């Protein structure tokens, strides 16, 4: 106890420095993050709840944009989840030539500008693109239609689930998987009853982040959507179109839905993090001296 007291005196700052730094940090966070979030709701509700509701549900194009976002984002998340689980299993459990190149390639979409991502899809599937004529002859619409929006969103959110799962799988190790197999489980039984329960929180975490980004994606879908109101406008695109039309209340109403979803995402994320921390503390109660907690 005495040693603890000495440590605190010798390795912390005087109170006035501490509180100045805390004040500065909270001020910056307030100006950059908190006021903008509050402002979205303040502007959306500026003319009362009735007007807000009319702007949101009374506008058929905004309604359609909400539906479209609820189709595009989950589809992209499902695709990325299948990919992410497969990639994490291959990368975390096996050594093979080209493994580190594969990891780099999976991360690539994070460093590509979303606009460039959209352009690449137009170059492939647009009318002038490499498969354009073939698609036209077979009556398949990708660009300026929902499949293009899904492809663009999948590209932009590609690394989320895989990135989250690879370290989780590596940390858990393969012992329990091997044990299940040696007790006679089939590969799928091992996956459903041993591997999946072990990675569920990490997987959920990746899915939540992936979904948040997928619903908010703008640049890539902007390029492939063709901006047809009531047809290929997702909710973020609808926000922009209403803004361009000087319909500020409508724009903020649409934005408030996205902001609400972002806040929910954060709440789920925080509760997942504390659950993982609690589980880890339960699993290893007596390790370490608490310094690294």
């Amino acid at each position, binding site marked *: 106890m005495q040693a603890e007291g000495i440590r605190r005196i010798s390795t912390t700052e005087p109170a006035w420095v501490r509180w100045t*730094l805390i004040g500065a940090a909270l001020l910056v966070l307030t100006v950059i993050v908190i006021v*903008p979030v509050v402002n979205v709701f303040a502007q959306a509700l500026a003319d009362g709840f009735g007007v807000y509701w009319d702007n949101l549900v009374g506008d058929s194009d905004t309604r359609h944009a909400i539906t479209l976002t609820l189709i595009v984002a989950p589809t992209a998340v499902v695709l990325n989840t299948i990919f992410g689980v497969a*990639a994490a299993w291959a990368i975390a459990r096996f050594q093979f030539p080209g493994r580190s190149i594969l990891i780099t390639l999976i*991360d690539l979409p994070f460093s590509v500008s979303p606009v460039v991502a959209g352009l690449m899809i137009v170059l492939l599937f647009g009318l002038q693109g490499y498969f354009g004529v073939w698609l036209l002859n077979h009556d398949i619409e990708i660009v300026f239609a929902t499949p293009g929006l899904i*492809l663009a969103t999948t590209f932009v959110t590609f690394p989320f689930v895989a990135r989250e799962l690879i370290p989780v799988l590596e940390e858990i190790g393969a012992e329990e998987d091997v044990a299940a197999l040696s007790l006679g489980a089939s590969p799928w039984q091992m996956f459903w009853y041993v591997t999946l329960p072990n990675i569920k929180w990490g997987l959920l975490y990746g899915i939540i982040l992936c979904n948040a980004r997928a619903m*908010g994606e703008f640049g890539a879908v*902007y390029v492939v959507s063709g901006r047809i109101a009531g047809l290929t406008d997702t909710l973020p695109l609808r926000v922009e179109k209403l803004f361009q039309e000087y319909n500020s209340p409508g724009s903020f109403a649409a934005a408030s839905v996205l*902001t609400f979803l972002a806040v929910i995402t954060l709440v789920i994320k925080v509760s997942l993090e504390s659950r993982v921390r609690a589980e880890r503390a339960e699993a290893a109660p007596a390790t370490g001296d608490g310094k690294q907690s």
Partner: protein
Amino acid sequence: MSSVNQRVLPGFGLSLGTTLFFLSLIVLIPLGACFLKASTLTWSDFADAVWTDRTRAAYLLTFGASLAAAVLNAVIGLLLAWVLVRYDFPLKRLFDALVDIPFALPTAVAGLVYASLYAPNGWFGQFLVPLGIEGAYSRLSIVLVLTFTGLPFVVRTLQPVLESLDADVEEAAASLGASRWQIFRWIILPSLWPGLLTGFALAFARALGEYGSVIFVAGNMPYRTEIAPVLIVARLEEFAYREATALAVVLLLFSFTLLAVINGLERWSRSYAS
């Protein structure tokens, strides 16, 4: 152990096959198409598309605004990470969670609300514009909104580093008579550099490609407030696919270089940590 896995664990072929299928379909084939399209341009066509007064102004603005925002992110990020790890204050968990808002909030919403906050009649603009600070439809507005979108990177890379710092070294320095500032400058800061640089590079890379938020706040005037991704969209809307592709290749090469730098930095921070 990995050789044991190789023999015992199932699903290598299936999982690697699925991975490569998705990777090819979603990432590699589209990227290939982009470079294939660019290769149909002659060298002088390519140069005409990517090297004009207007594109140079756009590169310079994209680069400069991203750099300014990343520097701001580094300073603010260090402050936030320090305060969140080292000090206790009311509602700390809530403030910590709020740092992630820029990751969760769609960039279009960020752009919309920043344009409105700093407009002459906005919550901030009504005080700032009379002072001559134009935080909307200006170059400053681009820096502001990019600072928002990149905020979490430095905080989240520094927090684990700060948490793992060994208090013994600081105690030793203090017992030898070092002041708090000397300890920070000569003991803490050197171990923060790799994380700080990694977070800076991540924020910079993110800012370079950012589009959604910037088009709301910038006004997008050629030569003045037009960033490089806006140029690509402008070319596309003229159906000038080859020119758009040429510009995209320039941006891609730039982001690949940056990705290599970030990978190197992350290796450096890991070797520092161990």
